[in-house]
């Protein structure tokens, strides 16, 4: 009993330290970004392009595939349930709003947290283990500027693109199921979609994407730099990076839902 309480206490203290550490790191990243903005000579273009290719280009197929499948599943379930009320046609509203506002950005963020966030943590972590980060520091190079800023920037560029791709794939899947399973023709589906979906729904998903990118990049970098000398430590931090990033993505999405609801967007 006492040990349970002790564990809870430790977890609370650790969470507090994480928050303080995160805030401090956020400050360093802002300073690092400012340094890059003020001295464009420090801007590492090739590194950024390389990262965008790794994140957006190589990540696109798998994100398209899962979005397509989730679009199919949601449409199928929607049609199945709505049939009982004779309201099959409303599946277009359901799928359209759900995919554009929530599903595409969530699926993309979770996939990228698992795919690219973990890679960032592992890369930065193994550099930390091999003293490469210290080598950068003693050369007068700031690891935040060199390693973290280009990666976070690449995520901020890639995630909206991927979110858009994910939306299109999700709607395609839904349209296909609506046609083959629900008997809603493609022209009907598109016409209904056009009448239901305003640019607002589309914008909500895309507005959220850069924030998700920032959260994922920040957590991945913090965890990477927290790696100590051992291989277990690297494994532990990569796991922590993915778990925390997915958790925070969902929390941020919840906050956005409240925010958009209260401004009636």
């Amino acid at each position, binding site marked *: 009993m006492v040990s349970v309480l002790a564990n809870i206490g430790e977890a609370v203290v650790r969470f507090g330290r994480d928050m303080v550490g995160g805030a401090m790191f956020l400050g360093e990243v802002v300073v690092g970004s400012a340094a890059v903005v003020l001295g464009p000579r420090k801007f590492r273009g090739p590194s950024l392009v390389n990262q965008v290719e790794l994140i957006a280009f190589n990540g696109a197929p798998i994100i398209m595939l899962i979005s397509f499948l989730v679009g199919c599943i949601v449409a199928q379930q929607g049609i199945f349930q709505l049939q009982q009320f004779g309201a099959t046609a409303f599946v277009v509203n359901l799928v359209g709003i759900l995919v554009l506002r929530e599903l595409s950005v969530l699926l993309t963020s979770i996939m990228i947290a698992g795919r690219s966030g973990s890679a960032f943590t592992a890369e930065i972590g193994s550099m930390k283990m*091999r003293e*490469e980060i210290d*080598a950068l*520091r003693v050369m*007068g190079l700031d690891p935040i500027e060199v390693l973290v800023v280009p990666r976070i920037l690449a995520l901020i560029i890639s995630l909206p693109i991927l979110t858009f791709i994910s939306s299109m794939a999700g709607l395609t899947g839904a349209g296909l199921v609506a046609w083959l399973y629900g008997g809603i023709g493609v022209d009907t589906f598109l016409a209904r979609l056009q009448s239901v979906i305003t640019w607002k729904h589309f914008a909500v998903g895309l507005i959220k994407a850069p924030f998700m990118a920032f959260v994922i990049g920040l957590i991945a970098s913090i965890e990477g730099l927290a790696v100590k000398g051992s291989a277990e430590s690297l494994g532990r931090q990569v796991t922590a990076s993915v778990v925390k990033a997915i958790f925070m993505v969902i929390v941020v999405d919840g906050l956005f839902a409240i925010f958009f609801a209260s401004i009636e967007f």
Partner: protein
Amino acid sequence: MGERDIGLEAAQRRDGGGEPAGQGGSGAIIRVRNLKVAFGEKVIMDGLDLDVMRGEILGFVGGSGQGKSVLTRTILGLVRKQRGMIEIFGEDVDRLSPPQRRRLERRIGVMFQQGALFSALTVKQNIQVPMREYLDLPPDLLDELAMVKLDLVGLPQDAADKAPSELSGGMIKRAALARALALDPEIVFLDEPTSGLDPIGAAEFDDLIVTLKETLGLTVFMVTHDLDSLYDACDRIAALADRKVIAVGPLATMLASDHPWLKAYFGGERAMARQPAGKREQSG
């Protein structure tokens, strides 16, 4: 004394550094006073004093976990100190503005224990990282400079385009040394340069360091475990124990010391085998 005086003094010393190599010049190039470093409750060093003289190879010994690397990292500013003063080139590192700090870092080269070469870059690119950061030179000149550095540390030219993972342990050390020398530093920090090398490779590396010291007029701060290096390469030795530098001086001082750890270290069987050579150096 104002900061300007210190700056002037430093400038004079820097001029002094321009003297032909080998003449060395006197005076401490690094001064550490009353240093205290602790991680949480654990005090690593307390009240530590150390001078590194210009143009010498200082070997730094100490038991495992006594904080040899920690001292190096503290001097380099990678570990925060609780108390004390560190002066490099006559300038208190705590009183430097960030640009001054960068200028200071330019004059220091560091070779880490595992080499710490950037694994994503080739050897040549590794050597060019500090050059790209500080010098504004065209690519072909950078290539040429990198080749000169490779030559300097005795690496073949075809090593230039290899990735660090393709190199042997000894080549990694040499490549790391080439990177440390990229900006023609005045001080080089070496963290266990001969660890993980076979005796022949280690002896070659010691020779290389001595040659570089003599030709380039380098000051070398070398953390080491290797008795051979201490006997063959080092001008002076500093020993760390009980959170302090317990003895500093040439090999003879170490051998004459009464401190139990030093007696064990230099009086052990492995050291005894070297004794005659050490004696010869003393008389010579």
